[in-house]
């Protein structure tokens, strides 16, 4: 008996009980479509996250100052140490010019920004002229501040779109003078819209000013050269290990650290951040997929139940087939194939529904959706496996039946 014949017999058996077959498939349909939707959302979210993180900048490496572990005394948190200076940044830029495309310190302070009767509380970022290159952030109106202005601690700033919209609702901000804290600053330019960042923050809610001005004027620091963080942009991410090593060596030398001393800084690249974040989203995906798998398990048990009923119902047919020459293996194959067909037809319907559902969820809720061919193929194979696994026991029972008992069954 060839496979096509068994296939035909199984198809006919399913078709004869259309309603029952459809209800049996329902469990698999929901299970598979849930798997497809969950994977589409999960994969979409992590792909989106990676894209958002890369939006934060171009081959970015961050260096934080870190307090050296003193035996006693108060320890600050990350970036609270006093070891890193803007001069360190300039030295890296100068000596590792073959690796580093752009360099900027980053200092930040939260302050009130005032123009006439409007005011707004926002983050003031102190940075260098190369900051827009690192962040991949272009100026949309006016100009960014110059190196000259940076050296002179000029009271010059550039506004993010959110800040501009809030304190200049009806007016071009370029050329106006605003107050940051109680210091007057001239608005030299306006950055283009950057959107929501990888951590969900509004990246446009910011004012950019020379770090020299922020440190000396706004923060009135006694050690104006000290900075919380340095941001670098590399020519290529392939050189990340080499760059980390050379930056580390240079900083250790500049900070006069002995051979046994710990680093008083920490170098972090975007790849690390993105792998941590996608790890979180992968965990969520695995959890949700486990829930979907349980619903598939329930669907599989439904198939097993119906197949057991089907074997009892068709016991005379089984007896007859055996009497005219069906071997136990023939009967086993027939019922397993029937069960596999139930589950794979359900699986295909589930895949179609799942893809449609994921797409419409994406449209309605604006979620990022990514449907991978691999997850579709895996879902299909899984549905076939469910059919085989849960169909085996009923089919095995059918194949063990005694033809005489079957033929006499009333």
């Amino acid at each position, binding site marked *: *008996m*060839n496979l096509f*014949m068994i296939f035909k017999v199984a198809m*006919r058996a399913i078709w*004869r009980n259309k309603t029952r077959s459809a209800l049996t498939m329902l469990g698999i349909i929901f299970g598979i479509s849930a798997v497809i939707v969950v994977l589409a959302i999960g994969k979409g979210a992590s792909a989106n996250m990676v894209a958002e993180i890369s939006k934060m900048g171009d081959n970015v490496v961050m260096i934080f100052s870190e307090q050296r572990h003193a035996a006693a005394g108060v320890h600050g948190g990350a970036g609270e140490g006093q070891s890193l200076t803007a001069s360190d940044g300039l030295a890296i830029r100068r000596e590792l010019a073959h690796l580093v495309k752009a360099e900027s310190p980053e200092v930040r302070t939260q302050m009130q920004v005032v123009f006439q009767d409007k005011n707004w509380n926002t983050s003031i970022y102190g940075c260098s002229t190369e900051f827009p290159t690192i962040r991949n952030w272009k100026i949309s109106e006016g100009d960014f501040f110059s190196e000259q202005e940076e050296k002179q601690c000029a009271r010059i700033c550039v506004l993010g779109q959110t800040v501009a919209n809030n304190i200049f609702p009806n007016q071009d901000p370029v050329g106006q003078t605003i107050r940051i804290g109680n210091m007057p600053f001239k608005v030299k330019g306006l950055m283009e819209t950057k959107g929501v960042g990888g951590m969900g923050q509004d990246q446009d809610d910011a004012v950019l000013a020379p770090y020299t001005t922020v440190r000396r004027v706004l923060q009135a620091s006694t050690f104006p050269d000290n900075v919380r963080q340095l941001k670098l942009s590399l020519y290529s991410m392939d050189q990340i290990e080499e760059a980390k090593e050379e930056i580390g060596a240079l900083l250790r030398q500049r900070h006069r650290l002995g051979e046994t001393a710990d680093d008083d800084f920490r170098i972090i690249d975007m790849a690390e951040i993105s792998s941590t974040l996608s790890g979180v989203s992968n965990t969520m995906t695995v959890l949700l997929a486990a829930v979907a798998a349980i619903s598939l398990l329930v669907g599989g048990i439904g198939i097993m139940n119906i197949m057991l009923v089907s074997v009892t119902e068709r016991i*005379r*047919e089984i*007896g*007859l*087939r*055996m*009497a*005219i*020459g*069906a*071997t*136990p*293996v*023939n009967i086993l194959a027939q019922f397993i194939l029937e069960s596999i067909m139930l589950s794979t037809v359900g699986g295909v319907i589930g895949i179609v529904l799942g893809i449609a559902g994921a797409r419409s969820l994406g449209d309605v809720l604006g979620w990022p959706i990514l449907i991978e061919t691999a997850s579709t193929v895996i879902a299909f194979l899984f549905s076939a496996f469910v059919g085989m696994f849960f169909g085996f026991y009923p089919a095995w029972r059918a194949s063990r039946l005694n*033809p*005489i008992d079957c*033929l006499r069954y009333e």
Partner: protein
Amino acid sequence: MKPVENAHLIEIRDLRKIYALGEEPVAALDGVSLSIDAGEFVAIMGASGSGKSTLLNILGCLDTPTSGSYLLDGIEVARRSRAELARIRNQKLGFVFQNFNLLARTSAIENVELPDFYLGRLGHSARRKRAKELLERVGLGGRGTHTPAQLSGGQQQRVAIARALMNEPPVLFADEPTGNLDTKSSVEIMNLFTELSGEGITIVMVTHEDDIAAYAKRHLLMRDGHLIKDDKAGRIGQM
């Protein structure tokens, strides 16, 4: 040792079938010996519980004896696996049942084709051609597409006979073939059996009706697991 003699199509020796029901084992067959030659038309008779159905089941390779020997066409079949017995049934035996046992919602022609699905001897078109010929042979040439529900009892039984002949088996087993039929249909079916017997097909039939048994040439009478009468003259009486 003497070589096994192959003269008989069916040869059973000292066949026993013991059922362990409760504490007392019951012997459905208690040492039956019998031989049937090719071309014979045999009726097995007896009251219910006499062991005639058990004998037919064992002869039909649907059941295995507890002890004894059964040579079918010179081959020992008493102790074979389920799969081997299935293949023997498929190739050497045809079955006709009291309640026809056709596949429901399946056309007559596909019912007739069924034994070759498991044998795979013929290709698709050759199988269909042979099934059509067999339906014509049993007088149902134009009914190939009818399902069992669209056929009368007599017609269904004729489809079943055509199915039994599909793989050209040397022996046909019939278990009360007219038990569910009216007199007219019964006569038609028995005439068909007589024709087939005339063509050289061996027929072994179980029945409890004397007028049906009268079509057979040889009568076996069973009682309490024993073969008590073997009448080769074809006479019925004092049973």
